[in-house]
Every structure is written in C-alpha cells, then in structure tokens.
C-alpha cells in the first residue's frame, strides 16, 4: 500500500551520481539489487513504520528483564496489596501513590500483566521466526527440486501439497496438534507443516521461470553441475518473492499460533503467551476487560509490524515498479 501513497520513482533516478560519488565511484556492486531494494524500502512509509514497530518488539524481547517490573510468572499474593484481576493502576494518571503500580493491571492469578505482555514478545517473535524458517527451508527445497527436475517427481510433490492445501488452514493445524499433543512446540510444528506448500509453490514458480533462461544454459555449457546451477544460479533468483512471502508468513504464523493457544492447543500456562493469556481470561471480558484487550492489542501490533514490512518489501522488490509503470501492485 505504501508505494501507492507515494509516487513510485522511476529507476533511472534511483542510483544518482552524487550517491555513488560518496562511495567508491568505480564500484558498480554498490548499486546491487539489495542496495537498491533497501533504499527503495526506506522510501516507503509503511515499511518504515513496520520496521520501527518491529524494532520496538525486538528491543522489548531482548531487554524484557529490564523493562518488565516483575517476573512474568511471579504470583503477587502476600507480597503486595493487590486484588485478583485488579484494574490498571498508573500513578501518573491519578492512581493513589500508596498502591503498587500495575500499568496494565493484574491477571486472574495475581501476576503483573504488563510484565507478562513484555515477556510474551519473546514467545511471539520466537514462534514467528522459527516456524517460518522451518517451513521456508523445507518448502524451498521441495519447490526448487521439483521445479528444477520436473517430470514425475514434480507431479507427485505438487499433488501431495495440493492435498495439504485442500484443508482449511486452522482445521488441519488442530488435527495435527491433536495427534502430536498440545504444546507450543507442536503447535509451531503443525503450522510449519501447513505452510510448506506456500513456500514450495513460490519457489517452484520462480524456478520454472528462470530454468529455461540463457544464463542457465551458459552455466551448463561451462560444465556446472545440477546442484551448482540450482543453488548458485536458480535459487538466488527465487529469493525476492520468497522474502516477501516469508515476511507476511511470519505475521500469519504468529496469528495462527495465538489462535491455537487460544483454543488450548498451543502454549500452556504459565507461559506468558498472548493467545493463551486471552483464553484464560476470556470469560472475564465483561468484568475485567483489560485482561482481554491488552494481549489482543499486543498480537495485533506484532502482526501489523510484519504485515507492513512485508507489504513494503513487496513494493520494493517488485520489478514492475523498477520499469516505472507508476502503478503499484498490492
């Protein structure tokens, strides 16, 4: 969406002379695809906002012990004068100074919710990155090999993946977790398995589009082996769309893991996972809405960060923009 809010810039203007002059004039590598992409990426408002949001999340995940005022699993009964599910108390906003400050309130087990949400960032980022990495590795290999080799191998792999895609996403995830047993690791594994077809298809499509190109033919004439061609010539060309899909995939993975945790199949208490925090307190939505509102906002913030970044990446990597039709593709 972002490139649409800003006029797309024709590529001719992108690697300007003064920029090159700042570095090594003779170094044409300075204007590599990645450089260009990065530069274009940071011209997009949504990508910048997404990157800042992600930065904040990474920061709070790393520095959670310093940011969080309490231990996320510490039960405050007997330590402080707080009630179960007490509403937020912020001293700056007029909460009496003699009461302990809990800026997002206290949960049903008398734990500080703000600390739990901060620590929850760790869980969500871990879930997002690990799940998608696993799916990308397996999916890319499957897609690349079947696209490159073609024939019966390609047919078989694609039909099997079609079967996976024939099930509604969450339904299959629930079934797989039921087999493996509930838990965060198994939930992540289930979501990784289900996302494999997406990455396999994206990779296969790029592989098919470059397989017949002249530079591949040239490599082959130079005596490169199949493996060499696949990993050094074909796969790098499949990378841009894969990066976009993977970034957006992290958003989906976080959302789906939260959903599995919400129905009790993902993270188990007392892990500070946002979906399960919501699930435990969902019947209190009328009496203690803060316990439902904030974990949900945290999920939304994180998912939004990856979605914005992914959209920005798509616009930055879209070759059609380079040729300057001026029309952005969503």
């Amino acid at each position, binding site marked *: 969406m972002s490139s649409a809010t800003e006029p797309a810039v024709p590529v001719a203007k992108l690697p300007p002379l003064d920029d090159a002059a700042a570095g090594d004039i003779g170094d044409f590598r300075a204007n590599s695809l990645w450089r260009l992409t990065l530069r274009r990426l940071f011209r997009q408002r949504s990508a910048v906002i997404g990157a800042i949001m992600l930065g904040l999340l990474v920061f709070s995940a790393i520095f959670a012990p310093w940011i969080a005022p309490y231990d996320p699993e510490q039960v405050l009964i007997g330590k402080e004068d707080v009630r179960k599910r007490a509403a937020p108390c912020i001293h700056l906003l007029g909460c009496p100074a003699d009461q302990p400050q809990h800026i997002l309130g206290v949960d049903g087990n008398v734990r500080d919710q703000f600390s739990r949400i901060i620590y929850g960032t760790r869980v969500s980022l871990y879930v997002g990155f690990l799940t998608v990495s696993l799916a990308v590795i397996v999916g890319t290999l499957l897609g690349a090999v079947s696209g490159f080799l073609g024939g019966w191998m390609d047919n078989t792999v694609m039909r099997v993946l079609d079967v996976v895609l024939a099930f509604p996403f969450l339904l299959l995830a629930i079934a797989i977790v039921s087999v493996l047993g509930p838990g965060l690791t198994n939930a992540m594994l289930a979501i990784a398995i289900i996302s494999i077809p997406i990455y396999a298809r994206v990779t296969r499509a790029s592989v098919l589009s470059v397989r017949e190109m002249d530079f591949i033919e040239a490599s082959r004439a130079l005596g490169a082996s199949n493996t060499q061609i696949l990993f050094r010539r074909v796969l790098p060309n499949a990378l841009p769309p894969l990066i976009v899909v993977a970034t957006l995939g992290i958003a989906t993975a976080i959302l789906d893991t939260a959903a599995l945790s919400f129905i009790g199949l993902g993270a188990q208490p007392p892990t500070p996972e946002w979906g399960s925090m919501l699930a435990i307190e969902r019947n209190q939505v009328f009496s203690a809405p803060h316990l439902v509102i904030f974990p949900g906002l945290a*999920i939304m913030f994180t998912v*939004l960060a990856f979605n914005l970044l992914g959209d920005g990446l798509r616009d930055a990597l879209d070759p059609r923009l380079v040729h300057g039709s001026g029309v952005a593709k969503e």
Partner: protein
Amino acid sequence: MTQYTIRRLIAAIPVIVGVLIVTFVLARAIPGEPCTAMFGEKATPEVCEKFNRDKGLDKPIATQFLIFAKDMLRGDFGDSIRFKRSVSQILIERLPQTMELGMAALLIAVTVGIPLGIISATRRNSPADVATMIGANIGVSMPVFWLGLMLAYVFALLLKDTPFQLPPSGRLSAGVNSIPFYEVYNLQFTAGTFKASLFTFLSNFYIFNSIITANWTVLTDSIRHLILPAIALATIPLAIIARMTRSSMLEVLGQDYVRTAKAKGLKQRQVVMKHGFRNALLPIVTIVGLQLGLVLSGAILTETIFGLSGVGRSLYEAITARDYPIIQGFVVVIAVGYVLVNLIVDLSYAILDPRIHLD
C-alpha cells in the same frame, strides 16, 4: 467448457483420495483409544473389546481404510461415538448454521470490501484512500477471537440498554423458537428418506426458514444474533478484498483504453464501472474464492466465542473427545466442499473474461 469441467473434475479425484487418506490417518493417529474416551472409568478390557468389534476397530488398518473409503463415497459417515447418532444427521443439523454464518460474513466482506476498494482506487492518496488502507492493514492483523470478544464487550456491555445492544451468544434468544417450515405448512414425509434430510437441512437455515414461514420475530432475532459473529468473521476477508480490489482497479485504470474512454467524454462512473471494474474483476473473484478457507478456519474460533454449535465448534469438540466418525465425516465434507468451490471459481473465469478459452 464441458470438456474442461470434466478434466478438472477428474484432476480433483487424486486430491480427494489424498484428503481421505490424510483424514483417516490423522483420526487414527490421535492418541488415546476411542473406547476410553467413550466410557472413561468404565472402559474395562471386556467392554472395549466388544466396543472395538462393534465399531470395526479390531480389523487390520488397511481393511479399516477400505471400509472407510467405501462408506465415505456412499455418503455414509457412520454413527457418532459420543452422540450415538448418525454423523450425516448431525451434519445436516449443524452445517446450515455454519453456512449461514459464513455466507453472512462473505456477504459483508464483499458488499463493503469491493466498494471501499473502488473508492480507494479512484481517489488514490485521498484521505478516504489512506484511511481505508490503514483500516485494511489493521483488519488483516487482528486475531478473529480477540475481535469477537471485543465486539461482544462493546455491543453487549457498553451499549447495553441502547438500541445498538446486540446479543453476544447463541443463535436465538431464550423463548424464541424457530418452527421448521414443514411443521408450519404440515408437509408430510417419512423419517430417514432423502426428503426428510433435505427438509431438516433447509429448515435449519433459520433466516431462510423464518422468511418462508413469515415468522418475523424469529427473523429479526436470528439476524440480531448473527451480526456480531458475522462481523468478526468478515473482518479479515473484508480487508483482503478491499486491498485486492484497490490494486486490481489501479492496474486497470492505468490502461490506455481507460484513458480513451475518458477522452471520449464518458461519465466517470461509467468509465470506472464498465471499463474499470468489469476488467478488474478476475483477481477479485479469485481472492473471494480463496477467502472460503479463511472463513471456515475462522468459523471454528467464532463459533467457540459466540457459543454457536456449528460445524467448526462441533469438529473441535469431536477432536478433543476422539469422536472418529464425526472427525472423519466433517473433515471430508469440508475439504471436498472446499475443493469444489475452488473448481467453481476457476470455471467462472471463462464467464468473466471471454478472452479465456478453457477448452
């Protein structure tokens, strides 16, 4: 066209066989014996042996699969272990509820999403466009279950005693009953026939049933109950459809023939709708078709939150209770339905774009 349809149907067969295998394997692989799930403490070896023999669970796994596949193809899903009733009967009762919810959600998503996308595209970079796109980005990032709870909180608690108050759970208020049309019109049929199943199925669409029986109390009450879950379920598809419509429209509106149309002096409205929208429709239809899977996944969560006993929630409960026949029957029906809808979407391309010849 016919030839292509047949070819696509044949191509769908291996996928459906795959669905059968996956469903069968997953249902068997769920840990725990159905017998223990069924009888709990009373599951002595003797009881279980008889139970397994009755349900055919003592046969070799390959035989079990063949029996299963044969039954599935005949539409015989067996009896639910938990409810001791035929799975097809349960499906007939519960599927309409989920379909009603899903259709309402898709209706909201399409009727709101497409106009929003068109407005965004025609007034690119205007405040309306920016607001729509920000809204769409937030919409796709929202967890369905959280949105459901928030809607319930706002419309059932904060807006209590205002005209906007809406019920947060159930399908009908206490005391309101939907009377099946066949009872109202005294239609006769014998139990267990196809006609009986069809009548039960149709009468479980409460909105449809109340319209044809002219029961306006039930109609308004069931619509009021449907609004919140439908909005919750519609949000993500709505956001996706709005974005897709916008980008597809932008691409089309940049074409030369659109400029020509404008140059001819056609009205803006005509250019946008006839030259623009008609040609932008193809990717929009694709994306609407794809939303079905999302709606089905979302239905599991939405039905749980709003206390609706549709297919989604029943299936989730069946998995926890290891009710194999329900899991198998429901999953197969949903997956086959999903494959068929995608097929219909593919076929509709030829109608929407005469340049595409499928044969």
